[in-house]
């Protein structure tokens, strides 16, 4: 397995995330696909760190931090989603149409 494979994998993961994001209408589903995208980035870091990078610790470190940060972000996101649910009694993004021109 080469760097290229990993990058392609990451890219595919990213693409899947994007696809899910567009395609899903359920908020939690969208959050999950967003996670996919973030982790694609992580894979990039790791693989660069493993194969090429002169300063390989940085990559690994970076990915760890990313995981942490993403966790907080998800926490907030879920909180908001919950409050959403309280208002709309559903998690369908199609309902988010009150704010528009």
């Amino acid at each position, binding site marked *: 397995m080469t760097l290229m494979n990993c990058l392609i994998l990451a890219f595919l993961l990213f693409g899947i995330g*994007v696809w899910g*994001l*567009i395609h899903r*209408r359920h908020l939690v589903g969208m959050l999950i696909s967003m996670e996919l995208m973030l982790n694609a980035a992580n894979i990039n870091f790791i693989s660069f760190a493993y194969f090429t990078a002169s300063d390989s610790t940085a990559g690994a470190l970076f990915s760890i931090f990313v995981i942490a940060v993403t966790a907080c972000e998800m926490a907030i996101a879920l909180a908001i989603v919950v409050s959403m649910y309280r208002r709309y009694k559903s998690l369908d*993004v*199609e309902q*988010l*149409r*009150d*704010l*528009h*021109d």
Partner: protein
Amino acid sequence: MTNEISISYLIFLMPLLTFVVNGLFLGRKSAKGAAAFAITCNGIAFASALYLAIKFFTVGLPPIVFQIPFLKFAENFAANIGLLVDPLSIMMLVVVTFIAFMVNIYSVGYMRGDRAEGRFFALLSLFSFSMLGLVAATNLFQMFVFWELVGVSSYLLIGFWYHKPSAVSASKQAFILTRFADSFFLFGIVLVSYVLQSFDFFAINSITLSYFKEHTINLGIMTVTQADALILGAVMIFTGGWGKSAMFPMHIWLPNAMEGPTPVSSIIHSATMVVAGVYLVARLFPFFAVCGNALELIMWVGAFTMVFAAVIACTQKDIKRILAYSTLSQLGYMMFALGACKIGSAVITTGWTASTFHIFTHAFFKCSLFLIAGSLIHQVHTNDLDAMGGLRKKMPVTYICALISILAISGIPPFSGFFSKDEIILAAFQGHHYVVFGLALLTSGLTTFYMFRLFFLAFHGKPRSESVAAGHVHEDFAMTLPIAILAVPALLSGIAAKGLFEHFFVPGKLRVPQLVLLPEAHWIPFVAVAIAVLALLIAWVLYASPKAKIERALDDVNRGGIYKTIYHKFYFDEMYYCVVRQFIFNGVAKIARNIQDYVIEGLVAAAVKFVHILGSLVRTAQSGNLTFYLGTLIVGIIIWRFIGNLPF
């Protein structure tokens, strides 16, 4: 010499002073005071003009008495205000100041009790001031300056009774028509001064055309030699005079100007306004003489107007209109006399002298005629011959003076008109312009006819209005005095001044190129007088003889078509109205307005609309749909990848 200078200043300052003082202060306070002030000032002006004239004809004066710089365009290309003296201008100065003096006196009676008597005197003085400035002009620019002032003061005076719509429209017409001519005048000035790099009369009068043959000048539509440009300039300048002296077809404003107070008409017709055109041509005579066939044009314009006006005058019933058309025809005389001075390339001087001489004599008798008409109107309260008749008994002095002036205008010796008119006809003959010569003779007959028609219908016969019959009519001293005074020059100025003119108004004295002189033709006067007498008899038979049918003569309803056409002045007013209304106002102006309102504003509106459409496009994208928003993120990456022209 300083003495003369200060005196000559007086001539101009006095009327100006009157204008300022009366216009600003005295006018509203007391009409009497204004009148008195105006008369004194004009009297002083006349006196000093006379003094200057005597000085000039006895000891002589420098060509330019004084000159004040006005506007400098470049080194040795400046416009000055000054006083140019030669016989011509001196003669005009005297005439103008004298007439102004008379008219001012007359106005005391005529305007008595008018709302704005003070304003009237102020404007009258402004009028004479502008004319004096025009006469004294040393260069084209100064002439144009005062030319315009004459125009505006005539506008103010003709529209003096501004609550009378007819007066207002008449004044407007007068101003705009002359202004129209002036625009060409201005163009002529710009063109000529551009070629010659000077406004100065001496420079302009002493050019030789051949010198300008080689250089060319771009007139936009075509490129011509400077010589041709000068000829064009000459014609343009003449156009200014054309309009000012109300030559056909720009004549219509003059009869309509009758709406103004009669003193105004008299001063316009005799001295101040209409002769300006003739004066312009006379002043630039050598220039016109060298400029190709400019003189031909002038001659024909003059000749045609002469006949045209005379014919119309024969049918009118408004006495002021009759006089107006007579003025037109007399101006025609002067014009064509100036124009007739050319035989091939040579130039004769007779016509020039004659024309100036006629300006001189005409001023007196025409002024007095108008004043007479004025006092008639003042007594009878109408301009219409229908309501007159039998005034001989009531107004004896006026009657005599009228007779004198009418004889003068008809060219019966020894009255003043005879000499000048005779000279003019002679000029036409000497210039080998036999057609014009014939027309001139004919017109002199017509003149006699319509003047005596007026005379008989007004003074002889039985009274045709009860006010006259009832005998409310009397003579007003203030009005009769100037009439009486004016009768004297009307009678004598011919004999008196003939010598003067023949001695001084000759090339040597005028700084104009030497002109050829031709022998007199001694039989002409007799012919002219014969025709005049004949016309007089016809008039007598028709209007004054015991078996004349007055009401038939005054009837204008059941007449032949030709008579009607003439009576309605060949429907020229209507034509003008049609042109202005339909072509200018509803044509060009409307198109311009539409271009503005629809094309320009339309484009602006379209631009705004376009932006708004784009705006609403952006806003429709803001649908609130989260999926769409997320889509934009992805799309964003892709488009920036491709149009962000990153090098990969």
